[in-house]
């Protein structure tokens, strides 16, 4: 990477972070909402731990994996909405007139999302430790959680960027939020897959890639080092990131050509 390109990425990533930080709703919701749901679910579903076969006696530890994915969903929305606003306000067109490279725009935007993801991960882990969760995989596991979150931030941020570049509309990006929420709820977020009674629901959660993302994070928190869960989680997260970055790069090229 040349110095000029790195400068461009750095500047745009900084812009992305500052812009997010300046909008209270963009900061409060990605941090407060997942914690709120964690508090509600971990208290409300505490008695689920008494079900035979439940993998831990702490529902909080079990549910701590969910904010990681919710945070990534919010990253998708923020990245997409911000980029769509850049398109709607003509910022992207003006940028296209400068020597700045298109890939720098995308990398900068995604860099900003990933910085946000690191902050979120620190909050989720900090909250968990503060509330007495014992991370079974230890300090190295915490490092892996950060790496995994960065990968999620990259993948989901790129999905947001792709949607924004394809539609050029913040409303359209926001309109996808319920779809992502469906993926989250029809997953193993609330109960292990093997304890789901309804057959079609268990099949849906098994087919849903989000289940494996959650289970990878969960394995580090409640089991320790589960090679299968980690391989599936990292594999799917890498695949999502690769596809989403490729699609958003193509969409950016088309968008800049149109401009």
């Amino acid at each position, binding site marked *: 990477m040349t110095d000029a390109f790195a400068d461009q990425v750095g500047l745009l990533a900084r812009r992305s972070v500052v812009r997010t930080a300046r909008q209270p709703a963009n900061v409060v919701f990605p941090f407060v909402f997942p914690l709120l749901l964690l508090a509600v679910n971990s208290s409300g579903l505490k008695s*689920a731990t*008494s*079900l035979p076969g439940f993998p831990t006696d702490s529902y909080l530890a079990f549910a701590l994996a969910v904010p990681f994915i919710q945070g990534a969903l919010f990253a998708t929305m923020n990245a997409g909405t911000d980029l769509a606003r850049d398109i709607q306000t003509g910022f992207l067109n003006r940028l296209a007139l400068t020597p700045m490279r298109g890939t720098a725009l995308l990398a900068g935007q995604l860099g900003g999302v990933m910085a946000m993801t690191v902050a979120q991960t620190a909050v989720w882990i900090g909250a968990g430790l503060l509330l007495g969760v014992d991370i079974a995989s230890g300090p190295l596991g915490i490092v892996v959680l950060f790496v995994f979150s960065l990968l999620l931030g990259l993948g989901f941020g790129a999905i947001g960027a792709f949607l924004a570049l394809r539609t050029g509309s913040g409303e359209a990006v926001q309109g996808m939020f*319920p779809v992502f929420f469906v993926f989250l709820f029809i997953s193993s977020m609330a109960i292990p897959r093997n304890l789901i009674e309804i057959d079609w629901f268990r099949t849906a959660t098994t087919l849903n890639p989000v289940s494996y993302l959650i289970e990878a994070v969960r394995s580090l928190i409640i089991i320790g080092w589960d090679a299968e869960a980690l391989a599936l989680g990292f594999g799917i997260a890498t695949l999502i990131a690769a596809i989403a970055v490729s699609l958003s790069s193509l969409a950016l090229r088309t968008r800049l050509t149109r401009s």
Partner: protein
Amino acid sequence: MRTLSVAQGVAWRVLHNVFTNPSLLIPSLVFPLFFFVAFAGGLSRIGQVPGFDYPPGYTAFQFVFVLLQSAAFGGVFTGFGIARDFESGFGRRLLISAPHRTGIVLGYAAAALVRWLLTAAVVTAVAIIAGMQVGGNGVDLFGLYALGLILNLAAILWAAGVALRLRTMQAGPVMQMPVFLLLFFAPVYVPLALLQGWIHDVARVNPITRMLEAGRGLLAGTPTEVGLAFGVAVALVLAFSLWALRGLRSAEQAG
């Protein structure tokens, strides 16, 4: 009479907008169904937790929550429409043209009720198709839906009060978040008796808990605390009526 004609006009316009615009109609129908599927489908095993005793089963247990949730959020979604009307300037024109402005709030409330009736019908149909067991008789079920209607009214009056004061779509989270918290700080997944720790203490004083427990009793055919639940619901309506009307005054003063 003039108040009623204003209310009729406002309600017709809101309903026309909602029923001819899929982006407004579909979320209010899909969200409750989605919660119903996720909770009743994914968490059905919770019905086997020791101490969980609800004869009609976990699907019925979650149905009552989803029904009341749809009532509350139906009110909030209509509140979004009020905020949108004021942001676009339509609200101001409405204030100028309406001879009796209380009718504006009444109209939005009537529209919210009609809108929720459709949602309730769809959610009920899906629950029955999903095999929900009903223990209550006709009177019990009437009580359950009446509870939902009153909650819907309370929610629209709350949201109207916020929308009329802030008059911007950015007020959405202010309308939504307290309702969301009240709903989820109630016994959503298990009965109150099985909740432990701080959530139990919060749920015990949460007004939604009374409605939820009474609603579940009505559906099971074993009514409990019904008078208290209706008392709480009516008290919420009265309090939020004042809140909404004062919001209307605030919008009038803003010009």
